[in-house]
Structures are given as C-alpha cells and as structure tokens.
C-alpha cells in the first residue's frame, strides 16, 4: 500500500544561515549571504562574490568540503526528527543525496599535488567519487537502508528528495535522509566564467536587467517517513511531499528549451503523481538563476501552467540570497518552500527592481510577505536539459489525528 510521505526533520547550512532558524530569519528579513570570496583566489575573475559559508571549521579530518557540509546538514536534520528514532530504525533508514560536483575540490587538490611532485594522499582520492558523501552519512549514522547518489546537475537535490520519497512511499525504506550538497571552488568559478554565465554585477532573477548567476555553496537534508508512523510517534511534521516529477527537455547540452516544454511536463508529472490540479498551486519556488535563458524558459512554463492565474500565484527565486548552490539548490530551496508553507509567507526575489511583464507574474520583488499557502512547487533545472519538481503541501492529518503541524500554526 502506498504511504503518504512527510518531512519530520530539516537541516540546512548555506550563506544565509547555518541552521534552519537562521535561514528562516534571513528569508523573512530579505538578507543576502552573497559577499566577496575568501576560499580561493578570485583576482583573475571579473566577478568576485558568491554565497560562501563563513567560518566552516572542519569537524571531520580528510573530508571534502561538500561532504562536510552534507554531514552537518544531516546531523541537524536527524536531531530535528529525533536522533533516537533514526538510531532505533537505522537498519531500515537510508540516504539519497544529490550533487553536481561531488568531491571536485579533492580532485583539484589531487592534480595540484601531483603537479607539485608531492605524494598524493590516498584519502584525498577516496573523496573523488560522487557517492563518497552519501557513504559518509550512512556510516556516520550506521544506516542499513538504501544509499544512493543522484547527479542531474542543478536539479540533483530536488530529484534526490523525490527519489527518496518514492522509496518511503513504496515501503523500500522506513526513514530516508535526503537532500543535496555542493561547494564552490576555482573549478566551478572558472567553468561558469568560460560559459559566460556569471553575472558581472549582481544576481537578479527574473529582472529585465539580469546578467547571469552568482555561485553559492551549501547543503540541506530532510528526514522523510510515512505519515502514519510520524503521527503515531508524535513527530513534528513540517510538511508533506505529495508528488514529484523529473524529465529531460531533449533540447541542448546547456541551454534549456525556450518553450518551457520540459519544465511544464515535469511540473505536470509532479501534480499528476499527487492528484492535484494546477489551479490548486499557491506558490512556486522557482530555479530562477538570473540567466536570460533559464528565467525565460521557466516563465514560459509557469505561464502555460497557471494561465490566467499567473499574476496571482507568487513565483520567486532564492538565488540572489544564497547564490546558485548547484546540486544543493533543490534541497535548500525545498527547505525554503517548507518554511514558507509553515510560516505562511512568501520569501522575496532579491535584487529585482525591474520585474519582467509585471502584469503577468508576481515575483515578490525584494520584500517577503505573508500569504495563505497550502500547496507549493519547488522547481529546478540543470545542464543537459534535466528538470525536477517536488510538490509540497501543508500536512493535513486524517480526521481524528491531532498531531498535525497544521494545528500549531
């Protein structure tokens, strides 16, 4: 029998907050975490800012920074859900993480050490494969359930959460830790510069004057379990994962299909898997990178989805606040969407002074605001044409159950 899947724990670390509470405060107060880079030399780049997490002191020797961030987010999420519960059911608890770059920082270090004719530390090479970070989390919590790493570029985090929700819904796991993690390095800075995708002033999602992305780093992990068991154990339920979709627009290796057809199918699949109609969607947390190609594609898709409701359904992006966190974007922005559902507010799209076609879309420029939200979509798009969307809802317990978080807000 199919299970309803709920979120009972959340952990996040990004430039706009090292905890869920800090992140919530930044979202409500419209605070950006983007500042000058200190992690590596940016003197050769035109743009030198990003969503860097300050003061990360390594707790785990030899770990890639992306794994370190993933572990911290996982620890916070498990604490939030109840560490005893995860420990008790650890043989039926798994992990699914999304990442774009994985251990590329360790890979770069390996090459630089080789060039310098130094011995290469074997543990540095162990951080290179993408699945290293999921393995670290599985071993940290001694998990015995499914362990997987999803890599569909910038849609990895949301796809990993969708995948994990399928495993819980189908009874393949009792509890899943799911999310995404990525860190920024000279590798990504150089790569996006080579593609001329980096902004030269500031990231301005959906703004008429947008010029490109600002990079960011971070991780977010959520704890998923069946609604019945969460209610039974009296867990605090943050939100319900109602459905998800993921597909490829089969258009180009880096440019999205400008018609938005791929994203539209993805969102339709997410809604269909939940039995929810487009007319019930109250909010879309968009990918909104600040590039012309991505933002135009998304608005085409959401315009087709929402029709004459386009002006009434907020469509926002967090990229100007936290930067583009690549494989972590879907997970961090999903946490933002859950916080919006819980707190009944819509986070703002920062730096957007000239929204496109204001009569058609409500991008909530620069200032968050209160709203009545029941169903929200979190959407992401990645290189190579991949899209992913997760449909979230405020949790309504079955009649007679009063453990619903709905009653507390």
């Amino acid at each position, binding site marked *: 029998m199919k299970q309803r899947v709920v979120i009972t724990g959340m952990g996040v670390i990004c430039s706009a907050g090292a905890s869920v509470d800090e992140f919530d405060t930044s979202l409500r107060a419209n605070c950006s975490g983007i500042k000058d880079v200190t992690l590596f030399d940016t003197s050769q780049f035109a743009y030198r800012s990003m969503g860097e997490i300050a003061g990360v002191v390594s707790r785990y020797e030899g770990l890639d920074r992306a794994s370190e961030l993933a572990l911290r987010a996982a620890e916070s999420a498990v604490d939030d859900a109840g560490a005893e519960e995860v420990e008790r059911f650890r043989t039926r608890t798994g992990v699914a993480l999304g990442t774009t770059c994985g251990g590329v920082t360790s890979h770069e270090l390996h090459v630089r050490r080789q060039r310098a004719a130094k011995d290469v530390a074997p543990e540095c090479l*162990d951080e290179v494969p993408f699945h290293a970070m999921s393995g670290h989390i599985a071993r940290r919590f001694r998990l*015995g*359930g499914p*362990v997987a*790493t*999803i890599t569909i570029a910038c849609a990895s985090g949301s796809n990993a959460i969708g995948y994990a929700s399928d495993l819980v819904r189908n009874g393949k796991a009792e509890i899943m830790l799911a999310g995404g993690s990525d860190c920024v390095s000279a590798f990504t*800075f150089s790569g996006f510069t080579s593609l001329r995708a980096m902004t030269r002033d500031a990231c301005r999602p959906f703004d008429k004057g947008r010029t490109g992305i600002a990079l960011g780093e971070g991780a977010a992990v959520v704890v998923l379990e069946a609604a019945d068991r969460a209610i039974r154990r009296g867990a605090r339920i943050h939100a319900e994962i109602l459905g998800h979709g993921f597909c490829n627009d089969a258009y180009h290796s880096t440019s999205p299909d400008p018609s938005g057809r791929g994203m539209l199918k993805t969102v339709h699949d997410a809604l269909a898997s939940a039995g929810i109609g487009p007319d019930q969607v109250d909010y879309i947390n968009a990918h909104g990178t600040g590039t012309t190609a991505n933002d135009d594609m998304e608005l085409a898709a959401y315009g087709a989805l929402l029709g004459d409701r386009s002006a009434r359904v907020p469509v926002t992006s967090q990229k100007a606040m936290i930067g583009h966190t690549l494989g972590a974007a879907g997970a961090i922005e999903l946490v933002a969407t859950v916080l919006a559902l819980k707190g009944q507010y819509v986070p703002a799209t920062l730096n957007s002074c000239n929204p496109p076609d204001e009569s058609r879309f409500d991008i909530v420029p620069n200032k968050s605001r209160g709203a009545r939200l029941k169903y929200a979509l979190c959407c992401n798009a990645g*290189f190579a*044409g991949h899209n992913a969307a997760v449909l979230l809802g405020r949790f309504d317990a079955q009649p007679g159950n009063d453990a619903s978080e709905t009653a507390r807000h």
Partner: protein
Amino acid sequence: MNDVWIDGSEQISFLGVGASALALANGDDAAARWECAFPWIGPSPEFEFDRITGLGESPATRQMDGLAKYVVACSSMLLKSREADPGHEADVGIVLGSAFGCTHSNHAFIEELVSNGPRRTSPTIFRNTVSNAAAGHMATTFGIRGSNTVLNSGMVSGAQALAYASDLIREGRCATILAGAVDCVSEPIRARFLAQSGRIRQSRVPLIDGACIFSLRASQATTSSWRVTGYSMAFISRDDWQSGMWRVIDQAIRSSGDAVEEVDALQIHTDFGLLWIRTDPSERLEDVCQDLARDVGPGPHVENTAVPSTLGLADSLRLLAGEAASKIFLRRITERRTDSAKPRAFVFVAIGADGNAVALVFKGIPNGRKDA
C-alpha cells in the same frame, strides 16, 4: 500496476560491441587480456561511434565525451534492434547508473585549469563536467523526453538504475525505459584503483570501461522475456555481512510477491560473480546465501566501475535462459542443471566496495510459454 519486462540489452566493452559479443566471448582469452591490460581495459577496437550510430561529425557529437559516446552508441543499437519507437517520446525514460560519472571530464577540465589558469578553460569540456551530460545527449539524440535521471552510487549504480526504472514503469510514469550502466574512468580513479589493488589482493578484474543498457517496458515484446518482479536496497556493514546479505535478498523476494522456494538461481556480484543454480529441491536459499556471502567476503573490496556487475547480470540472464553466454565474470557456478527448464525466479545481488547492495528479482517464462 504494470508488469516490467526486459525487452533486450546491448553492450559496449572490451568483449566487443553488441549483446552477441557476450555469446562469442571466450572466458580464458578474456582473463589473459585482463592480466595484460590491468589496471584498466577500454572497449574493443570494434567500437566505432560513427559507424554504430551514423551520427557523423555533427556539432552535437563533437560535444560528446567518452561517457556520452558509449551510452549513445549502446542506446542506438538497442533502439534499432528492438525497433523501439521513440515516437511516444514523453513515455520513454532514461535511468543511467555510473560508478564514477563525469570524473574523466572533470579531470580534463582541472588539467586545463591548473595548466592554463582559470581564465583559459574550455566551455566544451565544462559542459561535460556534469554526470547527467551523457543522459542529456541520449535524450537529445533520440528525442526522449520522459523521466530521466542518473545515479552515481558506485559499483551498484547499474543495478540501482534498473531497480528505479522498474518502479517508474510499474507506476505508469513511463512505458519504456533505457536503463543500465556506463563508465569511462580517468587517471585519479585508476590511481585509486591501483592503490586499492595493492592493498587488497582479491581480484584481478581491471577497471572496465563501456556501457551495458537494458530496454525495460510495460508490455511483453517477446515470448522469451524476463520480468523484473521486485528489488530491495541496503547498506551492509562488515560486522553484519552474512545476515545483512540475507536481509536484502529476503526483502527483495518479499517485494516481488514470490516465495523463497521459487528462487532457483542466485548470483552475488562484486566485480566478479558467484552463481548458484538449484539442483536439489530441498536446498534452502538462506543456506546458499550464507555460503555465497562468506565466499565473496565482507571486503574490503576493490572498487570497479558499474559496468562489470551490469554485464555480469546481462550474461547470466542469457545463461539462465539457455542462450550462449560468456560466463566471463563468474568465478564460480554451482552444478549446471542438465534439463533446459528456466529457473522460476532468479535473484541477482550487486554489492559495492562500500557494502552498498541492490537485490533484483527476475522471473522467467518456462520454455517460451507466456507466464501464468
């Protein structure tokens, strides 16, 4: 809920090009080639991308890296051989598994970055520094617009891809899915493999490049198909190796709705496989599992690509169906049955170097008749 049928498979590896190469391969020759090639063996010289795909030197193919070329060529053969119609493009999906994903393109980009500086790197290489680039090239080349994802979970990635693809078909998200494994390793992965091999003298299977892709569909295409009836996934610790192995197998069989007694074949596969085929009706599967798990051992194992275990699965499905097979990845097969009946159910377990495990349950059709 839909049934999930295997409609065919194709492969590109050192064994040659196409599923038929598995039938023609000679185990002794291959072992000798492994020894010479160690620590890495690429595809056979028969792998000629342009000849297989007919795509020529288009701008799209110029942007493909080795990983994409393996999987596009493999899928091209599969689509041609099965006469699959990608016309229902939104119903066709792609689920790829790769142990190391785009690390070879990452390596090429890092080499440029370190040599030339951050302002002189190639956007063409950077486009391939996402592990889903190969799946994207597949989608674009064949116009496949359905569910599409990539798993980078180490050696078990191909088995995980097949497991997830089976769920997507069972739930009606896709009518057909191309799913399987692809890998193209780079210098740091070879260096890591050599370092591991120096410490662990368990296997002389080199790192294997290539692709092995299955076509899964919701409707039966041929009378000799296998069905994917269930699966389970688990992370098995060394302390709990034998009981953990049984747990993942037992859960997979339960998920398939089959009885343990119906399982007539079991394979446990790291970078090599051990295959048991029932000869004695009274043999208990749990006892067999304990024996195989003990023989494979809890490791540590050397981490290969996702290709050997996926090729090993394709080969065993041929063997158990009574077709010619290479048996190249099988270190041991228990007594061969003398009759030609297919097993009622076959459990295949892929195990990663880190203890990550995927158990898949397949059900055959006895003697070409449609299963009841």
